[in-house]
C-alpha cells in the first residue's frame, strides 16, 4: 500500500482530542454528603491532553501538516481551547451540548467521531490522552479507533511518525513494547512523552486569530438520542482518610530527632 498516498501527501493531519474537566487538584468534597462540590470547581484542560497537543505540535514542526483540536462537553470553554491554539495547534472545533453532562465513554466517542468526521475527515493521526483527569477511563482512544476501524497504540511515551507509518514506544507491565502500525491510527499518551510548552505572550496573541468553530449536534449529524449513555453514574462520593495531621516545624536538628523517634515508634516489630 502506501506508495500513491506517500507521494500525494506526507504531511500528517493530526487531530488532538482535548477534554475540559474540573480541576481535581482543587476539588473539595461536601463535608457531610461527601459529594464533589462541582459547582464551585475551576475547569482546566485534562493533563495528558496537553501532552498530546505538545506531541502533535512537535510532529508538525518536524514534518509539516496541520494540528486540529477537538473538544466536546456540556459547556466547552473557548478560553481553555485557546490555550491549545497558543501552544501551536492550528484550528479548533468544539461541540457543546447539555446532554453531554451525563456522557459515558460510548457517548463521548460518538460525539468526538462525529466532530472529527465534520472538521477533519482526512486525518492521519488522532492523539488522545491515555486517560482523562476526571474519568480516568482509558477508553476514548481505543473506542475512536474502533469506530474508524483503524489500529491504535496506547500508553505511548515516545513516538516517531514516518511516511504512512508510525513507530511507538509504549509502557506496559512487561516492559516497553516498541510497535509499529500503518496510518491512519489513534495514539494515546501519558505524562512521560514530553513536557508541554508554556506559550509565550506572542503565541497567546497569535492564537486569538486562529479559527475556533462551534458546532451543534445538528452540524455533525447527531441527535440527543445518539448521546444517551449506556453506563449511568448513580453516585459519586469522596473517600475519606483520618490522619493525625501533626505538623513539625523548627530547627532541623530537633526535627531530625523527632523524625527518628516517629519512625522507630511505627516500624513495628522490625529491626
Amino acid at each position, binding site marked *: 500500500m502506501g506508495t500513491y498516498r506517500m507521494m500525494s501527501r506526507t504531511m500528517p493531519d493530526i487531530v488532538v482530542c482535548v477534554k475540559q474537566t474540573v480541576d*481535581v*487538584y482543587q*476539588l473539595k*468534597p461536601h463535608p457531610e454528603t461527601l459529594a*464533589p462540590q462541582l459547582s464551585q470547581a475551576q475547569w482546566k484542560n485534562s493533563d495528558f491532553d496537553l501532552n498530546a497537543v505538545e506531541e502533535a505540535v512537535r510532529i508538525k514542526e518536524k514534518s509539516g501538516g496541520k494540528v486540529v483540536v477537538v473538544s466536546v462537553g456540556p459547556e466547552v470553554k473557548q478560553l481553555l481551547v485557546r490555550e491549545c491554539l497558543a501552544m501551536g495547534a492550528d484550528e479548533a472545533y468544539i461541540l457543546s451540548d447539555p446532554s453531554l453532562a451525563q456522557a*459515558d*465513554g*460510548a457517548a463521548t466517542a460518538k460525539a468526538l467521531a462525529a466532530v472529527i468526521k465534520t472538521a477533519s475527515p482526512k486525518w492521519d493521526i488522532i492523539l488522545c490522552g491515555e*486517560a482523562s483527569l*476526571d*474519568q*480516568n*477511563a*482509558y*477508553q*476514548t*482512544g*481505543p*473506542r475512536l*479507533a*474502533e469506530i474508524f*476501524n*483503524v*489500529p*491504535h497504540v496506547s500508553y505511548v511515551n515516545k513516538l516517531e511518525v514516518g511516511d504512512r507509518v508510525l513507530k511507538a514506544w509504549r509502557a*506496559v507491565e512487561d*516492559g*516497553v*513494547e*516498541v*510497535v*509499529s502500525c500503518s496510518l491512519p*491510527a489513534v495514539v494515546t499518551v*501519558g505524562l512521560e512523552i514530553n513536557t508541554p510548552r508554556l506559550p509565550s505572550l506572542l503565541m497567546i496573541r497569535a492564537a486569538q486569530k486562529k479559527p475556533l468553530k462551534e458546532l451543534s449536534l445538528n452540524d455533525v449529524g447527531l441527535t440527543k438520542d445518539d448521546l444517551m449513555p*449506556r*453506563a*449511568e453514574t*448513580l*453516585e*459519586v*462520593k469522596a*473517600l475519606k482518610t483520618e*490522619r*493525625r*495531621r*501533626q*505538623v513539625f*516545624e523548627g530547627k*532541623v536538628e530537633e*526535627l*531530625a530527632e523527632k*523524625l*527518628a523517634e516517629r*519512625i*522507630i515508634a*511505627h*516500624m*513495628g516489630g*522490625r*529491626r
Partner: protein
Amino acid sequence: MKVLVAGEKPEQVITTANYAKSLNPAQVVAAAFKPFTENELAMLGGAGVEKLIHIPEKYLASGAAASAAALAELVKKLDPALVLIYASKKGVEICGRLAQRLDAAYASEAFAVEKGEKGFVAKRLVLGGGYVATVSLNSKPALASVKVSASETSQGMKPAVEEFDPGIDAPAVEVLETIKPEKTRVDLEKASLIVSVGRGFKKKEDLSLAEELAKLIGAEIGCSRPISGDLKWLEEERHIGLSGKRVRPNLYIALGISGQVQHLVGMRDSKTVIAVNIDPNAPMATESDYYFVADLYKILPLTIEILKKKLGS
C-alpha cells in the same frame, strides 16, 4: 446468569474468575489467548470455571483490535450477561474496543461489580482517585475491566478446553521489540514499611539518601509517577498511585512528594504516614499523621545518623 471472564495472562484469568464467583453466577466461562498449564487449569476449575475457551495467541499478538474482534465473536456466540476482563494495561485497551464493538455499557478499572436493580453496578475511582463512582451498566452484556487482587485459590476439577478461532481480520499493530525492565521483583503491595520518593529529590544519585534510610529500617522503596515515568530513576513497578501500585504498609514515609490526589489513592490505606516536605502547605500535610516541614537534604542525613545509633547498626 452466565459470566465470561478473560485476561491477558493465565493467572489474571484465574483471579478474575475467582472474583466472578462472588456474584453467584450460574455459569462461568473463561477465555484466554495463552495456553494454561495443568496446574493453572486446576486453579481455574477451583475458581468455578466449567469451560476454558482458547483463542489463538495470534489475535493477542496483533494488538487490541484483533483481540477485541475475536472476543466480540465469542460474546455473540455465548451470549453472557456480564463480561469481566482483568484490567492489565492490555486488558483495558482491549475492553475499550470490545465495548465499542458490542455497543455495550462499560466500566473500566472497576474495583467492584455487583448485581443491581436494573443490571450490574460497578464501582470505580474517579476525579483523580479521591472519589468512588457507582455506575449502572444498562446493557446486555455489561462489560467491566476489573482491577481486583488475587484471593485464596484452590484446585478443582479441570475445565474442558475448547478452541475458538473466529477467523476475523482487524487492523494490526506489529510488535518490533519488547524492552524488558531489569527485574527486581518488588512486592510493594505486601511491604510493611515503605520509603517513597518524589520530585523533591534533585538528582538520581541523591536517592541514595532514601535508600540508606530504607535499608536501615528494612523498608522497600516506592516513588511517585514522575520518578519512574518521566525521570526513569526507578523501575515502573515502584510507582504508587492511581496508575501504579496500591499499597497498605504499616508505615509509609513520603519524602519530597507533594501528595497530589493521584498519588494519595495509592497509599491512603497505609496505617501511619510520615512525610518530609519543604513546603508547609503541600497537600500531603493533611494526608499525613506526622508532617515534617524540612529540607530533605538537611534532615535525612541527620535522621540516618540518629537511627544508626538508636538501632545499633
